């Protein structure tokens, strides 16, 4: 690996995500587990500290906490669920949003640089949790039969179309939603991390290991491009946290809405 000696370039792939355990012997304790635990500690500390000394004239920290909470409450939960019943779901949505946001942004924070949700198991659990909540909310409000009727038989569809509509609506509203929810989050984080890896490792290879002057120049451009990609990733990571929570709220809203 010394400079000037050509070696084979190994592109980053799914194998880049198999991280060794942090403590040898404790197999479950890997980097994503550590990042997720850290994010929980940070979120709990932040909201605890922000709410500890509630005052009419808020301190800076309380103001930041209220800003974060109000964002989820007003522009996600209230818009999607409706002002009658949204308060019940705000704690879940708020916790979910900041958990996903912090774990995604961990892919950009220096020295951590690993998005937890690029391991699909984490995305599955988050999506299944949302799936259980929106189905349970609908069943609680309308009863089992009423809920399935609400989700699979859209109003205004003629009766002879029902044999076609019911399976399609059942698959799209009950079966596919958790899959698309988890895949969207997972694959964005996964693809973004690989993209960064391609640019940074490729640049590193061209500058230090290819042993060709011209390639070295291209490598520097590649490296700068990698920095731009990191900025794009920061945007994508925030947007994905937002989309996940907005869609969850949307699903809850459509499950408990009165008219279809």
């Amino acid at each position, binding site marked *: 690996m010394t400079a000037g000696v050509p070696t084979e370039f190994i592109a980053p792939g*799914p194998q880049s995500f198999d991280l060794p355990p942090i403590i040898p012997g404790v197999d479950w304790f890997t980097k994503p587990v550590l990042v997720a635990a850290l994010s929980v500690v940070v979120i709990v500390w932040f909201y605890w500290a922000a709410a500890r000394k509630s005052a009419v004239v808020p301190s800076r920290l309380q103001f930041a906490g209220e800003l974060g909470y109000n964002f989820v409450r007003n*522009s996600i939960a209230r*818009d999607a669920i409706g002002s009658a019943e949204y308060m019940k779901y705000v704690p879940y949505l708020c916790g979910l949003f900041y958990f996903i946001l912090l774990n995604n942004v961990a892919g950009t924070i220096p020295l951590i640089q690993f998005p937890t949700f690029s391991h699909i198991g984490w995305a599955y659990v988050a999506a299944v949790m949302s799936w259980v909540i929106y189905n349970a909310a609908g069943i609680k409000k309308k009863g089992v039969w009423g809920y399935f009727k609400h989700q699979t038989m859209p109003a205004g569809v003629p009766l002879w179309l029902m044999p076609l509509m019911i399976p399609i609506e059942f698959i799209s509203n009950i079966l596919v939603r958790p899959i*698309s929810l988890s*895949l*969207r989050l*997972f*694959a*964005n984080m*996964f*693809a973004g991390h690989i993209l960064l890896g391609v640019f940074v490792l490729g640049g590193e290879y061209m500058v230090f290991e290819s042993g060709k002057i011209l390639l070295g120049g291209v490598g520097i451009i590649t490296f700068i491009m990698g920095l731009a990609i990191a900025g794009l990733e920061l945007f994508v990571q925030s*947007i994905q946290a*937002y*989309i996940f929570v*907005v*869609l969850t709220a*949307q699903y809850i809203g459509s499950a408990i809405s009165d008219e279809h």
Partner: protein
Amino acid sequence: MSNLALAISGNIAVLGYGLAAIGPGVGVGLIFAAVINGTARQPEAQSKLQSIAWIGFGVTEVLAIIGIALAFVFKNG
């Protein structure tokens, strides 16, 4: 393979992903084109349009995302 002048090596799943990304690319473009149009016609509706646009973006983008997931699934198939 080797006597072809322009032999391509690599995995055909990559081509499949490239094809799968065309549709969602056009779709996402159409969504934001509509948002720009709507904002130009009615600037005060911008925040409302944007929140709808992000939902539409997420739903459209998942097609490309499924493509990338399947590219990895069929890589060795």
